[in-house]
């Protein structure tokens, strides 16, 4: 999918900065979404003007590029549970008008009053939790309508004594109950033990 704020050159990815419109290099070793693109992910469902719910935004490295992708007409709600990360994310959101900070547990977003009634075009999730599929399902039910998309970074090592392959298959089966899966992408060599999954609610 095409996004006019995304530039690919010599195998490297850049976004056009939200404020200055200058190129910013996106590091696949620091961002799983970029690692997915570097490995040939075809379906990047983030368009200009989109609203995005980003679960597990941390200090906002990837979020800042998503903020470039959606541009000034778009909006990115960055959710993280850590007050230490959120402190830095708040600073970032002061520089970027389309970033909205939310210090909260992604397991309990239905209790966040300000988000009541909000619908988004894309959910990006990177929380590294054991119940990652459950978290996505819950939030998709509330925030995502049909024909909209999610991008899930699935950690394949959080559950002990199973091979990565078994975990991926098992989690995929769980996902397929509520979602249609469009694409899966391994993230090696940039990120170990993670896979990127793009899909849509059924």
């Amino acid at each position, binding site marked *: 999918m095409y996004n006019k704020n995304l530039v690919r050159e010599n195998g490297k990815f850049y976004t056009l900065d939200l404020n200055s419109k200058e190129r910013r290099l996106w590091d696949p070793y620091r961002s799983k979404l970029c690692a997915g693109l570097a490995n040939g992910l075809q379906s990047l469902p983030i368009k200009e003007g989109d609203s995005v719910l980003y679960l597990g935004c941390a200090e906002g490295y990837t979020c800042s590029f998503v903020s470039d992708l959606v541009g000034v007409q778009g909006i990115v*709600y960055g959710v993280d549970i850590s*007050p*230490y990360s*959120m*402190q830095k994310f*708040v600073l970032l*959101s002061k520089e970027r*008008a389309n970033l*909205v*900070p*939310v*210090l909260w547990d992604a397991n309990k977003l239905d209790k966040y009053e*300000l988000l009541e009634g909000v619908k988004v075009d894309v959910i990006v999730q990177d929380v590294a939790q054991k119940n990652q599929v459950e978290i996505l399902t819950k939030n998709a039910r509330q925030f995502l309508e049909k024909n909209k998309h999610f991008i899930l970074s699935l950690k394949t090592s959080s559950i002990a004594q199973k091979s990565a392959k078994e975990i991926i298959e098992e989690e995929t089966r769980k996902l397929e109950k509520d979602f249609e899966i469009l694409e899966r992408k391994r993230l090696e060599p940039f990120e170990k033990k993670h896979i990127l999954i793009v899909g849509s609610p059924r």
Partner: protein
Amino acid sequence: MEKELFLEKTVEEIKRELSNPDQRIIALCRITEKLPKNINELFEALRVVTDTVYPTLEKEVGIEDYCRICLALQETNNEKVLQIINSGVSVKLEKREKEFVKGLAESILGLITLNKDIEKEAYHLAEKSYPNFCFVAGTNIACKMLVISGSMSRLSQMPSSTIQLLGAEKALFKSIRTGSKKTPRYGLLFNHSLLINKDKKEKGRLSRFLAGKIAIAIKADISGIDMRDELKKNIEKKINGTLN
């Protein structure tokens, strides 16, 4: 604008969460657990040079005294040191080596002081924030319980039987793994001042009792109530009871 509402709420919540001292107490305690190892390594480095000057001295005095003696070098009136120096086998250092030894000994003493300061800071934070808990468990044990559990809120959800065994996780897992009937009866509480010099049976009983009181103290701290007088009376009663 809508964003302003989110920003306001988030900033407010960050402030509230960051005012929670748990992570700071835990981080400080972790440093004080690690620093002694570094100090010992530096002490080893010091002794590479000073061992031949003061053979066997490390068996006579602790690290701090050893370093102080090194700082004074020959100008000491400590009898043991004089005995060693005058034994005829003690090597004399060159001027350059003396400077090196002084610098290192100073740094080691500095680190020992620093470690005490860090511990003081952690204890101060803990006592200020959780007076009931520190009063019943002892600040040292209270801090260690915080480190193991990760936060006061997690501690507050533990039943007292779990609190009683905090610090005995290894022994507990071993007894489960081997199916042994010898389950541990106390973890950190083994070192509680009330358990010192008590026989085994008393230790078990008292640690169960203390764990119960600690659970109450933790809940009181979370609700911001000062129960120290009442807890003190309870504990005194129990001690006097067991003495009879």
